[in-house]
């Protein structure tokens, strides 16, 4: 029982260490990324982070789907007409 | 069916074309007059003198429209009855070869006349003359080949000159651009090595145009 406890605490420490380490790496990576962003050409980062880009995608998709549906309807109507003439 | 392809027929057709040209003289004279008046007008409009690259552009534009003028006559003068007569007598390829050769020679004459008029009125800024002459020969061969086919097409629409120039414009853009670039090289007196690839391109276009014209003409002739 006590052995298990010791093992458990060791495990906890290991996990904490790993997390800490990972966080450090991630952190430095993020900072590096940020530095890069400052140097790099400007992009619409704020717009993107606010999540508004999904609205644009949604609108464009709806426009396109409507047009495509209309095309499908035309296609089916044409098919009916062809059958009639035949 | 058509009679077989025959070189003597081509020569006979060519002889006919040139004989007609010499008898009538009107078509060549009208082209020369056209070139002269255009060059005179441009001389008047560019009073302060023409820059060398503008010279090249102007030269090829004059040549292009003079070429359209010249080649558009090659099928309109043929009457329907004579067309049928030719159809029974000659192979379409013989016919088109003679027309193409005639048009190319005509364009070369037009080239010569434009060079003379340009040199006389505006000036002759070309430094590499041999390159310029080669460009003229190759470029007007390409123009002659495509204009022959286009004039045959436009004669089928019954609507003469305007359709002809519209039809030939997009087809001749590659030829014109390559020739313009070569002319610019000749004017600037650049080294030959710069111009080799453009010469090659122009030559390939020449071959493509003439072989296409030979291949496609038989489909136009069928009535």
């Amino acid at each position, binding site marked *: 029982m006590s052995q298990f406890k010791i093992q458990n605490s060791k495990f906890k420490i290991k996990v904490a260490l790993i997390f800490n380490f990972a966080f450090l790496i991630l952190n430095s990576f993020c900072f590096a990324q940020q530095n890069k962003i400052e140097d*790099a*050409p*400007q*992009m*619409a980062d704020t717009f993107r982070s606010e999540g508004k*880009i*999904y609205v*644009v*995608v949604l609108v*464009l*998709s709806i426009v*396109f*789907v409507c047009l*495509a549906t209309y*095309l*499908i309807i*035309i*296609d089916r109507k*044409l098919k009916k*007409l*062809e059958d009639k*003439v035949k | 069916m058509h009679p077989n392809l025959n070189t003597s027929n081509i020569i006979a057709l060519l002889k006919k074309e040139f004989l007609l040209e010499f008898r009538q003289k009107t078509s060549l004279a009208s082209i020369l007059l056209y070139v002269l008046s255009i060059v005179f007008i441009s001389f008047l409009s560019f009073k302060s003198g023409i820059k060398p690259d503008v010279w090249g552009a102007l030269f090829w534009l004059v040549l292009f429209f003079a070429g359209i003028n010249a080649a558009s006559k090659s099928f309109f003068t043929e009457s329907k009855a004579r067309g049928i007569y030719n159809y029974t007598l000659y192979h379409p390829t013989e016919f088109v070869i003679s027309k193409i050769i005639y048009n190319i020679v005509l364009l070369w004459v037009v080239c010569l006349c434009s060079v003379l008029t340009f040199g006389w009125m505006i000036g002759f800024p070309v430094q590499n003359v041999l390159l310029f002459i080669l460009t003229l020969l190759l470029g007007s061969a390409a123009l002659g080949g*495509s204009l022959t*086919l286009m004039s045959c*097409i436009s004669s*089928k*629409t019954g*609507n003469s000159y305007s*359709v002809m120039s*519209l*039809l030939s*414009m*997009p*087809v001749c*853009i*590659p030829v014109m*651009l*390559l020739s313009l*670039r070569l002319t610019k090289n000749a004017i600037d007196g650049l080294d030959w090595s710069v111009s080799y*690839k*453009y010469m090659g*391109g122009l030559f*390939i*276009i020449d071959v*493509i*145009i003439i072989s*296409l*014209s030979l291949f*496609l003409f038989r*489909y*136009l002739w*069928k009535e």
Partner: protein
Amino acid sequence: MKHWWWKIAAIALVLFSITMGFIGNVPRLDILNETIRNLYFHVPLWFAMLTQMGISWFFALRYLNGYNIKYDILSSRAAYVGGMFALPGIITGSVWATYTWGKPWVADDPKLQGVMAAMLVYFVYYLLRALIPDAQTKARISAVYNIFAFIMTFVFIMIYPRLAPNSLHPGNGGNPAFGRYDMDNSMRMVFYPACMGWILMSVWLLTILNRMKKLQYKLDNHESI
């Protein structure tokens, strides 16, 4: 619903390109900035146009080999669809160029010149078809013009960019179509499906126009083709 799968695929591919085109990652480049995403919407139009041009050219040849009016209908419809894709292509190109190259029309770019030549060929082809009243003559003459002009345009698009040194388009002086765009792999994953989708859409439009014209022909001439 037998032949519907590729139409659905076309819609799905274009939808995918719209979604990933905005959400996906793109390289950060000077001048281009976010406009690099135009690549997913502008360039596929050209691929669709070139496909239609090829179809039109191929069936013009088929028509001359046997004079079957069926092929003339297909060839001319493909030319119409091609022009329909070329027009937005040239307009979007102009808009894009205004904000990146500073001018709506850059004079000395071989790709623009080639594209303009193709547009002119299309318009003259339509004019030629409108001018000749008789159906068979129209088909024959326009097929000849089609073959000649499109070969010239193709030669121009393929040869001239290799010769001319100064193109603003990517892949300078090299391969005129593919070549190295400033694309990374994540962009390619969107770009190729987008091209595929728009090509399929153009083919779909072509089949609809073709069937319509055939139907009209059937009604006008009381004969089946």
